[in-house]
């Protein structure tokens, strides 16, 4: 008998719920990524996968293997921690690269006031 068959219903149901939730969010994020048209919109879709998509899968995995091994297993949370910590690096780099490119081209993806590097003196008024 595989160890999976020994898992009682009370554990199997929450595990299944979290796995399906995580997988669904990741799928919706991926679909959104494919369907959205502008680059900046596309930055948002994958964050579904890196936030609750990952989080929910991690919770399910920790629950399942903690139960099978009979001790608390938290390895998965290290993965989650590293994903949360490293995603901003790539996303910010991509976002800033797109901004640089759009500014250089004077692209209409940017609102009028963002197309040029702003004069710092003008900003001090905008802050008030």
């Amino acid at each position, binding site marked *: 008998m595989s160890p999976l068959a020994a898992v009682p219903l009370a554990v199997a149901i929450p595990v299944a719920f979290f796995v399906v939730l995580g997988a669904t969010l990741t799928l*919706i994020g991926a679909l959104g990524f494919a369907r959205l048209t502008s680059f*900046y919109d596309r930055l948002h879709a994958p*964050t579904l996968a890196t936030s609750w998509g990952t989080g929910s899968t991690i919770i399910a995995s920790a629950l399942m293997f903690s139960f099978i091994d009979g001790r608390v297993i*938290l*390895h998965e949370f290290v993965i989650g921690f590293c994903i949360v910590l490293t995603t*901003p690096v790539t996303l910010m780099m991509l*976002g800033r690269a797109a901004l640089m490119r759009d500014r250089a081209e004077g692209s209409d993806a*940017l609102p009028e006031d963002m197309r040029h590097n702003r004069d710092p003196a003008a900003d001090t008024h*905008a802050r008030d």
Partner: protein
Amino acid sequence: MSRLFPHPVLSVALVFLWLMLTRFSLGYLILGTALSLVAGWAYSALHSAKPRIRRWSAIPRLIGTLFLDIIRSNVAVTRLLLTEGRSGRQSAFIRVPLQITSGNSLAVLAIILTATPGTAWVEYETETGILTLHIFDASETDHYHDVIRNTYEPMLMEIFE
């Protein structure tokens, strides 16, 4: 002591991660401690400014707020993605003047905003302290202004500044 442990928080976190990923035993504890010491020295050679955490008590509150916020915005973005093309959603750039200036609190704010679906960090101007964000749903502009300025900024200031 501070020459040996230039970054105590980083070193302790690394030992903790090491023990979590391997299994707890004396051998792994010694190996992990040695590695985290070397990592601490390497990090202080790269980045000598030491992060100062003033109030540890605000950290669980920050994590709790972030957790609820992530759930809320996951629901919002999922709904918008599923109705894409029919909901008339528009995205927008917003500019938020920030009061926080230290590198550490800005880094944590960047993690918070990126981890929350619906907001993407685009640019921060050091001279003016203005942060440019791209938000997925332009109708939530006021909400994000409010959350950043009245929820996250005061907490980050309490922790770091």
